[in-house]
């Protein structure tokens, strides 16, 4: 029925409006408040002066970075939940954030430049992804239980290395390392490649959105219904891993968004992946943008780690929605 497509359009337009409002708030809030008129002038006109500079060179890159990261994490979480057919799956469950953290913290410990820290984080994430994939795929079979177990074990190993590095770190570096682990967008100045990854990945997965609905019914049913399950799993694993790696490189391992946003969205729009994936992308971006803006304004000039705020906003909203739903909505 056409009503389904119209419903998708309505949800996407509604979430886009909310997303733009969140970004507008992120651009105007701060210790240099900016009026809406000046905001438009700085973005689209040729306004000069300190306010325009603050918006163009500080707030805009940061707002885009957190929005893109939130979108990447929520989309990766939604894909991981279908891939692993587990409601508790999130983008970090397969050890990708652990690998990124090991890379980033090692670079920080060595006192490398920020761009090298980013590079080390990305390399760590890709290494963890390849290790998990190689081990889980070793004998050719590829069950989600094996993948999940391998990922959890690699994540645990990374956790031990992270703890060791924190214990050995000198006090001068400890705070920035802890902030990185909690998620910190203050250094995010080059968000545009991540935006390109988000758009390209989204365009790649949407043609398979109905296949995801079928895969959620179980591998056997999906294969009997003509879904090429192996190819689809490679796509899901590759995209979810890449999204996670890019996000962690950009803003550190912000927790909570990737697990909870897909569930929040599922409560509201249902479990049709054709609606869920775009809605999760926009909702994740919005949540992280709001959380980051709050993180740098509520206790200004002190900046809080954004990961704390995502949990503080998300947990009550999530529990409220959960309490309104009868049993079983979270899955088995």
């Amino acid at each position, binding site marked *: 029925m056409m009503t389904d497509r119209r419903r998708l359009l309505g949800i996407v337009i509604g979430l886009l409006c909310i997303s733009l409002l969140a970004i507008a708030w992120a651009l105007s809030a701060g210790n240099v408040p900016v009026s809406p008129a000046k905001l438009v002038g700085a973005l689209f006109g040729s306004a000069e002066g300190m306010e325009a500079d603050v918006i163009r060179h500080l707030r805009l890159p940061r707002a885009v970075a957190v929005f893109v990261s939130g979108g990447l994490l929520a989309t990766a979480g939604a894909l991981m939940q279908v891939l692993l057919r587990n409601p508790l799956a999130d983008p970090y469950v397969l050890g990708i954030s652990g690998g990124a953290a090991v890379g980033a913290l090692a670079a920080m410990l060595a006192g490398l430049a920020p761009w090298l820290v980013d590079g080390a984080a990305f390399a760590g994430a890709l290494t963890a992804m390849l290790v998990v994939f190689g081990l889980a795929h070793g004998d050719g079979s590829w069950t989600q239980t094996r993948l999940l177990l391998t990922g959890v074990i690699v994540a645990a190993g990374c956790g031990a290395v992270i703890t060791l590095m924190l214990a050995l770190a000198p006090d001068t570096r400890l705070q920035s390392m802890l902030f990185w682990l909690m998620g910190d967008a203050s250094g995010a100045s080059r968000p545009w490649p991540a935006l390109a990854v988000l758009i390209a990945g989204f365009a790649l997965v949407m043609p398979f959105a109905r296949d995801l609905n079928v895969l959620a019914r179980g591998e056997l049913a999906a294969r009997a219904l003509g879904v090429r399950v192996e190819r689809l799993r490679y796509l899901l694993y590759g995209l979810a891993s890449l999204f996670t790696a890019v996000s962690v490189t950009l803003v550190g391992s912000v927790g909570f968004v990737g697990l909870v946003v897909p569930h929040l969205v599922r409560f509201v729009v249902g479990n049709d992946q054709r609606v869920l994936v775009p809605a999760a992308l926009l909702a994740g971006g919005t949540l992280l943008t709001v959380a980051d803006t709050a993180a740098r304004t509520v206790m200004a000039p002190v900046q809080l780690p954004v990961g704390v705020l995502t949990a503080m906003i998300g947990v009550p909203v999530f529990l409220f929605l959960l309490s309104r739903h009868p049993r079983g909505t979270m*899955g088995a």
Partner: protein
Amino acid sequence: MIHGASPQSDPAQPRLADAQASGAGGADEPLLEADGLALRVGERWLCCEFSLRLGPGECLVLLGPNGAGKTTLLHTLAGLRAPTVGAVRLAGKPYAQWEAGEAARFRGLLGQQQPDHFSSTVLETVLVGRHPHLGRWGWEGAEDHAAARAALAAVGLAGMEARDILTLSGGERQRVAIAALLAQAPRLFLLDEPTNHLDLRYQIAVLELFARLAREGHGVVMVLHDLALAARFADHVILLDGRGGVTAGARDAVLRPELLSRAFDHPIRRIEADGNVLFMPE
């Protein structure tokens, strides 16, 4: 060429192809054929070489003890795993030559279990069966919704469209899965224990439904555990004995107490009452 097969793998025993040659629909193109099929899992042979040919209007029942390989055989017939030896053809064409979506419009499989991890409405779950009929960007249209609602009505679930599948009873969930298969609308139905979780009334209703579909020209292959239901609904039976032996043939040639007793490793008596056949374990 299969070694270690059981004494029952006698080459003289009736094959479905022979048994079926004189039956109704024999002139039609077969929906499903298997030639010299043998399956091995690990080091164990599940069945020795046998052949079958299923035409429109026919119902084949797979019987055998737990772990004998009925599900493996059914999945092989569905083209979801390659036979160790031999070939399977769907409408005269090996599965390798079928495009996956095209095959899904021709044959449908009811799995033994319905693994649910996320909530979803009954209607959405049944609409998943329409997947092979839709294009890459297609959304379910009015006729898909009509097919899904008709399928739900056929299994006695009309009015349950908005229920969450995670809140259903086992029998209701099984009927939702059957409705999804009906919405898929294949020519050939492959059913793994379709009566799972169903109460007596719905066991008969569901099997009657597939018997009617068979009379209308569909093919049905199903795994059953109830010998009396097999006797009532099967045209042909394949009996796996769990030791690699296969007896395949017309219903009455296979559903013999001595063959069943040997396959299930338990004495079984055949009783006739009011024209129906019952099998009673001693």
